[in-house]
């Protein structure tokens, strides 16, 4: 099993958010999690990434034969987990090129691969950026600083394409995007998809799933997955809302 979440319960500040959640993802699969606001979708993403604000009450997570709880945030990232943030934070004065260069090399170091040199990295970054229709000038700016919502999301996808993760988690990447931006972002994801990597797409709306075809759709309500199936579930939600799952 690639990712196995078993009986997971987690809380933050005395508030139980995840309640006995189960989810299995295999290599090459695209899973979508849909749910109303406050159902715990973003918590799940952050617990997977290792954010330290949450307390794990019960359960276990296996990722690529690792007990995920043995790894800290950066080790999970280096093992190939990538979280595209809902609200990417601004880091003034930190240029994207050295930032991503350090990131890719720390991953390579963990995998005992040779580090990538400055010149090759600059080339790689430029070619990935042009694939995603990102202006070269944007690469000269500080990480997320002064970016519009759409620019930030595109930047997340650029980072994802550079780091080439085994498991990419997209946390409401569609929120705040107009149709054109949504298309660029989803095109990026579709280009990255191979039989060896997996995606976990968290979304509130069905719109995103018009562009990225999930193999499985899960409905999350009140901290647990209440229904799983194919893309027909997304259509059901589009029609009737989350009401009937609650």
């Amino acid at each position, binding site marked *: 099993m690639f990712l196995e979440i078993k009986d997971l319960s987690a809380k933050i500040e005395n508030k139980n958010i995840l309640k006995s959640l189960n989810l299995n993802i295999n290599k090459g699969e695209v899973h979508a999690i849909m749910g109303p606001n406050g159902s715990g979708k973003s918590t799940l993403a952050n617990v997977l*990434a290792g954010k330290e604000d949450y307390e794990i009450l019960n359960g276990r997570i296996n990722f690529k034969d690792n007990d995920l709880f043995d790894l800290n945030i*950066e080790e999970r990232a280096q093992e190939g987990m990538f979280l595209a943030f809902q609200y990417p*934070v601004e880091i*003034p004065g930190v240029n994207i090129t050295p930032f991503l260069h350090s*990131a890719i090399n720390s991953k390579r170091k963990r995998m005992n691969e040779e580090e990538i040199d400055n010149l090759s990295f600059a080339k790689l970054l430029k070619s990935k950026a042009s694939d995603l229709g990102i202006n070269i000038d944007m690469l000269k700016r500080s990480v997320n600083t002064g970016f519009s919502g759409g620019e930030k999301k595109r930047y997340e996808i650029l980072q994802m394409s550079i780091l080439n993760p085994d498991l990419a988690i997209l946390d409401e990447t569609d929120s705040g995007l107009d149709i054109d931006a949504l298309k660029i972002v989803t095109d990026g994801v579709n280009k990255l998809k191979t039989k060896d990597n997996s995606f976990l797409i968290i979304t509130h709306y069905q719109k995103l799933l018009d562009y990225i075809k999930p193999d499985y759709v899960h409905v999350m309500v009140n901290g647990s997955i209440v229904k799983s199936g194919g893309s027909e579930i997304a259509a059901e939600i589009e029609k009737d809302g989350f009401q009937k799952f609650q």
Partner: protein
Amino acid sequence: MNSETLNTLNSYSKNKYKYGFVTEIDDEKSKKGLNEDTIKFISQKKNEPEWMLDWRLKAYSKWKKMKEPKWANLSFPEIDYQDIYYYSAPKGFEKKPKDLSEVDPKLIDTYNKLGIPLEEQKVLAGVAVDVVFDSVSVATTYKGELEKLGIIFCSIGEAIQKHPDLIKKYLGSVIPPGDHSFSALNSAVFTDGSFVYIPEGVKCPMELSTYFRINAENTGQFERTLIIADKGSYVSYLEGCTAPKRDDNQLHAANVELIALEDAEIKYSTVQNWYPGDEDGKGGIYNFVTKRGLCAGKNSKISWTQVETGSAITWKYPSCILKGDNSIGEFYSVAITNNFQQADTGTKMTHIGKNTKSKIISKGISLGKSQNTYRGEVSFLRKADKARNYTQCDSLLVGNQCGAHTVPYIDSKNNTAVIEHEASTSKINEDQLYYCRQRGLSHEEAVSLIVNGFCKQVLQELPMEFAVEAQKLVSISLEGSVG
């Protein structure tokens, strides 16, 4: 703040100052304590003319009547001026060595260890260096090459001998000996430092640099530097400093004067890395420094850039007197304090001429239990029509036991003056750390990256040869290798 961040911060406080070694060398010292005999001893050691000794003694009599300025946000025990050596030099330094073959190999070794090779072919390309060890200048590189352009770059001691007219005219002209007690003290007992004169119309083709090293125990260092840029000339100058690890506090009281004549520009950069004391606040340099530049001529420009990471106490306000019309003063500062370090630093911009402009960018970073204060004064005199100032002060707190303070004074006697002031104080942001780590960077790398980003506006003002070094120093200061 979560536990992992605290762990990282604690590891930062571990103190591994890599310049903390001592050079075992026979030295010759003055008698301990400060009196007229000490001053005569120094003056005689330096083979000074009578007028120089008189100048020193006058400053000394002023100092005796003065008290230390106490307005800074610093606390430290009374300095016992009678418990300090005012002169210390490696034996055999009555005359400055003619070339490196006359220099004790131990000294050459010391500088190699510090990463400042004295052989010209090994020196950073395009940088001329004067090195000062305790109270004497050891060597000055590329002197010959500079002389061809009429540039004088030598120790202040040598300048007193060879260029008395320039010294008489300019020494003490920007910082009068009686300005305050530390300037009076320095004027009385200064030992060595650099002298630079750039002739009219000459753009100095290389960076000039002085490297100060305190080695001897219980010894104060009183550096004196004087830079004169004649009409239409340009020079970029950089100083660096380190000292061994010792449990006692040591005094460093420098005076630096800059004079820019019409259309001249001086760029002065400092990377201050004196021993900061250990993680319990024991030892470290008391750094009381007066730096002041005079934009004497029209369209002249003086720019100060400082990266302050060392010293137990930093008291330092590189300032500009903007006398010439259209003259420009700039101050770019990064001050990092860790453990029990205290820094009270900033600048003074005095607008006298018309259309004068000043810009202040200050970045303070506090870690551990340190206190970091920005103190600045911008004043516009009556005739400073249409003068402008822009001030930006940002403070970054890392951890929750440190302090950041901003004390700006503004005084305007001319109502056409334009003043802009921006200030911010922020804590290192857990969301930024999380973001960086999610991309695979370690906690340390993430902090270093964020802090370097915070300082970028200032670091990019450094001469290119040193910008990379300074970035590393910032990271090391955070890691605790420097403190």
